[in-house]
């Protein structure tokens, strides 16, 4: 179990700064997810940690020992940092057992470590198979076992589930999370899938254009995103213009309590769709017109237009009959909202926000 600390890490490719001053702490024994859209620098971050790339500035410390930075560059094979690439990258000419034992020294190969890690990933008895005889999910499990076998200081997972189909992904994610925890490994998982990051990680680090935008527990990142972009990237977001005054904000949905600090004056307020409830109409209620109804099985997203033209989304349990399109409903907000000082979103950020839902697939 090792703690990893990155300070001011910069990596440039020509004029492009892929990492632009990254500060980050990976606590020992935890799984940290690095979440960001394509091209945000998360794979570069992983490659710098592994030692495949040299830093242009900054420092990486592993258990207090500098492995990169300040003129030092400990080569990849001396860092004890194991990687699990996207497609597994099993050595095609070696059996499963030989793959897993690749990082073990001679004495450890004779022990029962191979069987132990194969059992951890649920592949006990598969040692004699060749990689091409395994399914995609099994190959990925072997890749994790291979990385765990030499008890590395840190395991790096580069979108290890993205090549698998959705049904398989959830099960494998859970199993690998359990295997990492059972082995007490410290791990960094890189992903662009916010659902994956929120569901498996102990901590989530949101990366955008080579900088850390926010780091915290999955709940904190989802409930109290650092800015509007993060709010939209980690989940469905309803953003409303509002005026804050002493911890409460007047919004088109009524007056809402605010979480966290927000200055008085014009603000932008975040409400999650699951906070919006549809209630029977009554006097003084905020009313809205139903525009669209997206059925998802367990729940449904209802797009609504308020009387003043503001569009919002509500997540409702799909137990009852869908609300007919064009119907008038009343809406209420549960719980507190997050607010940021209102500032015009610049064009670039706006683009990123628009792109975010499609990137998260």
């Amino acid at each position: 179990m090792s703690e990893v600390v990155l300070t001011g890490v910069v990596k440039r490719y020509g004029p492009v700064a892929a990492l632009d001053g990254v500060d980050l702490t990976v606590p020992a024994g935890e799984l940290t997810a690095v979440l960001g859209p394509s091209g945000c620098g998360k794979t570069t971050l992983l490659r710098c940690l592994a030692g495949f790339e040299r830093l242009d500035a900054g420092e990486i410390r592993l258990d207090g020992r500098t492995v990169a930075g300040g003129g030092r560059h400990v080569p990849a094979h001396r860092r004890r940092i194991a990687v699990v690439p996207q497609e597994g990258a099993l050595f095609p000419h070696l059996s499963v057992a030989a793959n897993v034992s690749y990082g073990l020294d001679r004495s450890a190969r004779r022990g029962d470590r191979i069987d132990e890690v194969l059992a951890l990933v649920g592949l006990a008895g598969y040692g004699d198979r060749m990689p091409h005889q395994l399914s995609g999910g099994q190959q990925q499990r072997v890749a994790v076992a291979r990385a765990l076998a030499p008890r590395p200081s840190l395991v790096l997972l580069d979108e290890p589930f993205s090549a698998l189909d959705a049904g398989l992904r959830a099960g494998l994610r859970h199993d690998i999370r359990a295997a990492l925890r059972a082995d007490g490994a410290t791990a960094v998982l890189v992903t662009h899938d916010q659902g994956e990051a929120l569901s498996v990680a102990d901590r989530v680090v949101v990366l955008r254009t080579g900088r850390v935008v926010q780091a915290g527990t999955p709940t904190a990142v989802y409930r109290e995103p650092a800015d509007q972009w993060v709010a939209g990237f980690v989940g469905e977001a309803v953003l409303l213009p509002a005026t804050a005054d002493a911890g409460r904000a007047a919004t088109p949905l009524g007056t809402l309590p605010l979480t966290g600090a927000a200055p008085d004056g014009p603000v932008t307020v975040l409400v999650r769709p699951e906070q919006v409830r549809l209630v029977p109409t009554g006097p003084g209620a905020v009313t809205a017109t139903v525009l669209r109804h997206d059925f998802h099985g367990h729940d449904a997203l209802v797009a609504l237009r308020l009387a003043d033209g503001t569009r919002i989304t509500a997540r409702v349990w799909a137990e009852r009959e869908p609300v007919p399109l064009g119907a008038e409903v009343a809406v209420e907000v549960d719980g507190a909202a997050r607010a940021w000082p209102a500032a015009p979103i610049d064009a670039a950020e706006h683009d990123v926000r628009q792109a975010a839902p499609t990137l998260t697939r």
Partner: protein
Amino acid sequence: MTSTLTGAGPARTGPARFGVPRGWRRLAPRPALLAASAAAVAVALVPLVYLGVRTAEAGAERIVDELWTSRVGLLALRSLGLAAVVTVACVLLGVGAAWLVTRTDLPGRRAFAVLAALPLAVPTYIAAFAWVSTVDRLEGFWPAALVLTLCSYPYVFLPVAAALRGADPAQEEVSRSLGRGGWRTFTDVTLRQIRPATAAGALLVALYVLSDFGAVSILRADTFTRAIFIAFDLGFDRTGALVLSCVLVALTVLLLAGETATRRRGARYARLGGARRPPVRLRLGAARWPALAGLLGVAALALGVPAVSLGRRLASGVSRPGALTEVLTATGNSLGFSLGGAALTMLLALPLGLLTARAPGPLATALDRLAYLAHALPGVVIGLSLIFFGITVAYPLYQTSWLLALAYGTLFLPLAVGAVAGAAAQAPPGLEEVARSLGRGPWTVLRTITLPLTLPAVGAGAALVFLSCMKELPATLLLRPTGTDTLATELWTHTGVGAYAAAAPYAALLVAIAAIPTWLLVARSGLLDKEDR
């Protein structure tokens, strides 16, 4: 030229996602590798550059004198005419045979697939020898066209058959569901699907005909290659040979430019993935008999004639006094030259192959294309240029096997580059990185991961180059040290004086040698895969 087909084969895969970061390094790939690759290509281009330098020395007036003669015009017409006739015939024969074999219920279609590919195992000079020794006084344009067509239609057949097998049947199904009948679907969809393959094969045939020396010489068809050889062999002043060579190079470059253009357009026809489904086969009904007769006839002409002719002459050729020693000596020489040639070629190919596989980019592509340019040059031109190079620049190399090895290196570099690039793709950088992250140093990674994964493919490539050196004729003829004969040159000498029986053992050996790469090619094309339904 078997080489171009196989050389283009291995996948030029891009870097793995966990490999080189996308895009950013495209213009600045590994400098050491780049320098080594540039040096290798420079070596391969020595003949071409020297040809230009040497020709320019003759002065503009001499060049114009040599160039503006009715003979050059006639030669150009005849060479281009031969290339055109053979290419058209090969396209008709190749596409027809490919379609019959892959898309109809023709009886024995797997056997016919192999029969249609086998002529590649017969070097043109051996086919020409077989025809000359069978039919008396066979010579001139049309016999040469016949022999070249029979030898080179597999260059169209193989890629087209592969394209027809690989083409997405869904497109044809969509066309039919939109109301097009069987024939219109064939012309509007199927033929368009295979157009890139057909064009690539056709250009290969055209290049091949332009550079062919053996068949046109034996059949006395006056084309550029033959004229160059004669001008060199007879003349005291070799300017004529040089100028003719330059014209031939210009024609070759024109054809290559055509190939590049079609290849770029062809890229759009790539399949979009998805599982491969066998196409529905057409029922031939009564039409199967003429189809069968046609394919059998072509096979009889392309394979039967050489087989019968060789068989008939072989017994008397082998029993000739002193034949065994002569054959053994020639075999030894062939082996020695080819080993040297293959070694030099692989040495030159290693950096360039690694560069195209590991650091693809505009520079790597440019170097790769330059290597192909040298490869497309006729062997007779390369041999001629290297003779002058040896006499005037590198005299210590003249009349040694080094110069011949250099010629082989120039001719077969792309073949070896393809093999190395394919091998490197077997061991993507991602695998090496994983191995390093597991605590293994660079040398251990090389020994336990990179070498075990790449050696088989590199070895296969080296073997292919070796076999191609064995059957090469014109450059060997020009560059072999005086008095040293190889299998190919012995065959040529004996055929030249009409000693057909004496030539037969060499021809048989050479066919056996050429059969190996042909077999590899057929096996790789998927034509031998288990019959789909």
